[in-house]
């Protein structure tokens, strides 16, 4: 009994390192960000639901690739049909390329036909840094218990060419299908690709 307790204590210490970075199989960082409708969005509010986080910059060519081909909207729609909460997050600082205020974000979502549950405006980059979001797009899938199950690229072919989408493995789609079927996620990380997130200082 005693050794087991010690091991548990060691595991708990390990689970909360000083420089917290998101880790697969560990609780995903909670956040509190205002969305484009003025509503406060937190991760903890969605306990019991699978959550997808998508980092976005409307002017980034990699984002345009996936929206231009309808790939992102298709995945958002598919997620919504499965009761998955899809949150698009913009961590672009004010004055940087791709930063949107609430009105511009609503116009953007309408223009591209976005089917996300909400568009979060993280202009201070706090949530982006908490997730160590590096690129647009950069994707995270969190299970019903709030555990991080996938982080990385939207798919397996880093490029700006729409023609590559059909040939690529769509990692988020795959992770969602596996999670909703009660299976483990087969590819839990991939290197994200895209433009750098345009953080402020």
């Amino acid at each position, binding site marked *: 009994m005693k050794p087991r307790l010690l091991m548990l204590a060691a595991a708990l210490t390990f689970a909360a390192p000083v420089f917290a970075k998101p880790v697969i199989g560990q609780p995903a960082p909670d956040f509190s960000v205002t969305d484009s409708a003025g509503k406060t969005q937190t991760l903890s509010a969605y306990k019991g639901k699978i959550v997808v986080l998508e980092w976005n910059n409307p002017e980034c060519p990699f984002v345009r690739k996936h929206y231009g081909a309808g790939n992102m909207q298709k995945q958002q729609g598919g997620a919504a049909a499965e009761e998955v909460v899809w949150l698009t997050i913009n961590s672009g600082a004010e004055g940087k390329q791709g930063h949107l205020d609430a009105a511009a974000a609503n116009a953007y979502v309408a223009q591209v036909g976005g089917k996300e549950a909400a568009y979060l405006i993280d202009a201070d980059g706090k949530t982006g840094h908490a997730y160590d979001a590096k690129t647009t797009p950069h994707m995270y899938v969190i299970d019903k218990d709030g555990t991080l199950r996938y982080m990385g690229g939207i798919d397996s072919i880093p490029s700006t060419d729409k023609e590559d989408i059909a040939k690529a493995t769509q990692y988020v789609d795959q992770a969602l299908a596996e999670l909703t079927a009660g299976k483990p996620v087969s590819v839990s990380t991939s290197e994200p690709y895209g433009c750098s*997130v345009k953080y402020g200082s």
Partner: protein
Amino acid sequence: MRMAATMFGICLASATAFAQAVQSDHVSAELIGEHLALVPGQSTQVGLLLRHEAHWHTYWTNPGDSGLPTTIAWNLPPGFKAQDIEWPLPKRFDVGGLYNFGYDDELVLPVAIDVPADVKPGAKAHLAATAKWLVCREECIPGNASLVLDLPIVAGPAKPDPRWIKQFANARLMQPQATAWKGETEVKDDRIVITLRGAGIPPAQGLDAFAAQRKVFDNKAPQIERIGDALIVSSGKSEYFGTSPATLDLLLTAPAAAGQRGWRVRIPFADAAAPAP
């Protein structure tokens, strides 16, 4: 398409080199040849010359936290073969706390072209390529260009093209020097520590280090120190580190003041590292 390329690939024409620069957003691209002609059975150096506008850059084979490496897809006459890009030493770009590896200013990406032995002197070879890149300042723009380089085939030695002597000399300086250094890697929690030993190991001051493989280093500048005869390179481990690569291609770059130069060392990767959960 392929047929057309083959038909026009080699034809009789005037014996001069011909190519044209393509101006794209924030960068111009051109195929250049080190020599004015090609010689049957020999290999020749050509290059993709990229001239960047101030503050814009394109990418190394490992682009870092974001970006895309430049690619060249060749369409060559039958029997010709293009080798891989001989990547020059990269520079580190800080993009708002994220790191990109690549090139600014004027850059040549050299490629060796093997000329078959059976081509006839007097003919002309049409070397065609589609180059694709991502050019970034903080924002990024994908670009591409269809480029051609027509070179005559001669029996004898080919003369250097006087227009590009400086570019190819610089390209050679920008190549990492191969070394016989011995390296050992050790994965300690979230860091990768590499110990290098061997003749001509440089002092640590001003050095930077890069891994050619992706998903190994975390892309932040590694800590580099000299302890006795050993050079220790300690980098954060990539969050996307999965299975260890069999070997790590480590590049070291010296301060620009000394002229851009650096070294390459191939290191067997200690497989003590467990795959990521």
